[in-house]
C-alpha cells in the first residue's frame, strides 16, 4: 500500500464558481476518499422569516440562489398559496411556467459553459454564454431583471406578457434552438470532449437511488424522476416525458441537460400556444395559518419548501432543501477511485450551487 496524502481542494479554486471545501485523501493519483465541508457562504436567510413579513419575504426567497431565483420565488409562493387556499389565475400559472422554463434554459446553458471551461475548451464556453445572453434579453424585456426576475408574487405574477411579445418570443425560440443544436453537437460528438467525459464518474442506478440523488444526476442513471410530473403550475396541461439515460457517467449527465434544453423550448412553445386570457393575479387578504410542503423541479433537481405559519404576518419556520445538498452524497460516492485530474469535472457535473445549499 502506498502512502496516503491529503490534498485540500477549495474553497478557493479556479474551477469552483462558489466555495466548497473537499479534503481529498489520495493514494498516488487516485482519490480514496473525499471529506466535504460546507458553510462558507451561510447568510441566515431562513432565520429572516422572523424579521420580514410573509409578503416581503418573496424578495428574500428569490435571492436564495442567483441562477434558479425564479423557481425559489415560485416554490415559496406555492407553499403560501397552499396554506391560504388561494386560487391562482390560469394565465398566471402559464406565465410562471414559461419563466420557469426560460430560467431552466439559461441555467443549463450556464452549466454547459462552465463544464467547457472546466475541461479547458474556452471557445465553447464563450459560445454557450453568448447563446445564454439571448435568453437573458428575453427575461429583461418581459420581467425587468436579467437573473432576479422579481415577477412572481403570492397570488399570481406581477407582469403580464402581451400577445405581440409572445409571438416574438416564439420566433426567437427558433433561432435559439438552432444555435443550441450547434453547441450541443460539439458537446456530444467532439472527440476531445468525449475523451474527458465518457466513463468518468459512473453513478449506478442503485447508488443514485440509495444516496437520494435528484434531478439530472438521477435521470442520467436511468431513474425517471421529474417533479414537474407532480402537476404544479401549468405542467398538467403540457405534454412531456422525463429524459433519462442509462450509463450514469459525466457524458450522460451532459446529454440529459442538453436534451432538457430542447424539452424546455418545446414546453415554452406549448405553453405559448395554450395560454388563456384573463387576470394575472388575485388579491391576498389575511395571514397564513398552517403548514405546507411543496416540491418542485429546479434546473438542478428537486427542491423542497416547508413553511409553517401561525396566523401572524411573520412565519414560524421556513426550510429549504436544495438540490445541490441532496447531490453531495452522490458526489462523494463518485469521487472515490477517480483520478485527481477528473475531480473538477465531477464536482461540476452535479451542477453545484453552494449559495443555495447554505442559504
Amino acid at each position, binding site marked *: 500500500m502506498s502512502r496516503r496524502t491529503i490534498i485540500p481542494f477549495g474553497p478557493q479554486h479556479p474551477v469552483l464558481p462558489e466555495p466548497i471545501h473537499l479534503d481529498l485523501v489520495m493514494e498516488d493519483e487516485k482519490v480514496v476518499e473525499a471529506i466535504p465541508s460546507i458553510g462558507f457562504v451561510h447568510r441566515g436567510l431562513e432565520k429572516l422569516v422572523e424579521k*420580514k413579513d410573509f409578503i*416581503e419575504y418573496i*424578495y*428574500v426567497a428569490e435571492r436564495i440562489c442567483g441562477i434558479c431565483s425564479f423557481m425559489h420565488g415560485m416554490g415559496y409562493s406555492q407553499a403560501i398559496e397552499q396554506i391560504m387556499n388561494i386560487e391562482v389565475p390560469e394565465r398566471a400559472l402559464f406565465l410562471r411556467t414559461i419563466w420557469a422554463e426560460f430560467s431552466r434554459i439559461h441555467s443549463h446553458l450556464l452549466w454547459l459553459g462552465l463544464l467547457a471551461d472546466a475541461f479547458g475548451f474556452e471557445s465553447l464556453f464563450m459560445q454557450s454564454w453568448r447563446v445564454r445572453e439571448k435568453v437573458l*434579453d428575453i427575461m*429583461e*424585456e*418581459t*420581467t*425587468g*431583471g436579467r437573473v*432576479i426576475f*422579481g415577477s412572481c408574487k403570492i397570488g399570481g405574477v*406581477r*407582469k403580464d406578457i402581451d400577445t405581440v411579445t409572445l409571438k416574438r418570443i416564439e420566433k426567437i425560440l427558433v433561432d435559439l434552438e438552432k444555435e443550441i443544436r450547434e453547441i450541443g453537437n460539439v458537446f456530444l460528438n467532439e472527440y476531445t470532449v468525449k475523451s474527458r467525459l465518457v466513463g468518468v464518474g459512473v453513478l449506478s442506478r442503485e447508488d443514485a437511488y440509495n444516496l437520494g440523488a435528484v434531478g439530472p444526476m438521477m435521470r442520467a442513471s436511468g431513474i425517471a424522476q421529474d417533479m414537474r410530473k407532480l402537476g404544479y403550475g401549468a405542467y398538467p396541461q403540457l405534454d412531456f416525458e422525463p429524459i433519462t439515460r442509462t450509463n450514469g457517467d459525466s457524458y450522460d449527465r451532459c446529454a440529459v441537460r442538453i436534451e432538457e434544453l430542447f424539452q424546455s423550448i418545446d414546453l415554452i412553445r406549448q405553453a405559448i400556444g395554450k395560454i388563456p386570457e384573463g387576470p394575472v393575479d388575485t388579491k391576498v387578504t389575511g395571514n397564513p395559518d398552517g403548514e405546507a410542503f411543496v416540491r418542485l423541479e429546479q434546473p438542478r433537481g428537486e427542491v423542497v419548501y416547508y413553511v409553517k405559519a401561525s396566523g401572524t404576518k411573520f412565519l414560524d419556520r421556513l426550510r429549504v432543501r436544495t438540490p445541490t445538498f441532496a447531490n453531495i452524497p452522490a458526489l462523494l460516492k463518485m469521487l472515490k477511485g477517480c483520478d485527481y485530474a477528473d475531480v473538477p469535472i465531477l464536482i461540476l457535473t452535479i451542477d453545484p450551487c453552494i449559495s443555495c445549499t447554505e442559504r
Partner: protein
Amino acid sequence: MFAFNMTKSIFKNLFTKSPAARASLAKKEFKRNTRGKIDINIESCVFCGICQKKCPTGAISVNRTDKKWEIERLKCITCGYCVEACPKKCLSMGNEYSGPALSKDKEVFENARVLDNATNS
C-alpha cells in the same frame, strides 16, 4: 461545406470591425420593463412613509416634519414594492440604471414648494 463556411467567416472578419469594438461603442438600450432605479415625483408626495415601511432593505427614509424623502441607491434592490405600495402613485420605476456612486450618500429629495411656504411665513 466546412471550407466554404470558413472562407465566408474569414472574409467577413476582414471587412467588419471586431464585435468587441462595436459593443464598446454601442449605447446600452434599456428595455421597456427594465428595473433601473426608483424615481420620485416629489411635488405630489405627501410623506406618508408607507414606502419606508414596505422597503425590504430599508433603503428609503422619509422625514415627515422636514418634508424630506431620502433613498440610499446602494441599498436599493429595485424590487418595486414601494412603487406598488405608494398611495399617491408618485413613485415610479425608471428604465435607466442609477449612475456610478462615488460615496455612500443618500439621495435627498425635498419638496421645494413646502419649504418656500415655510420660509415665507
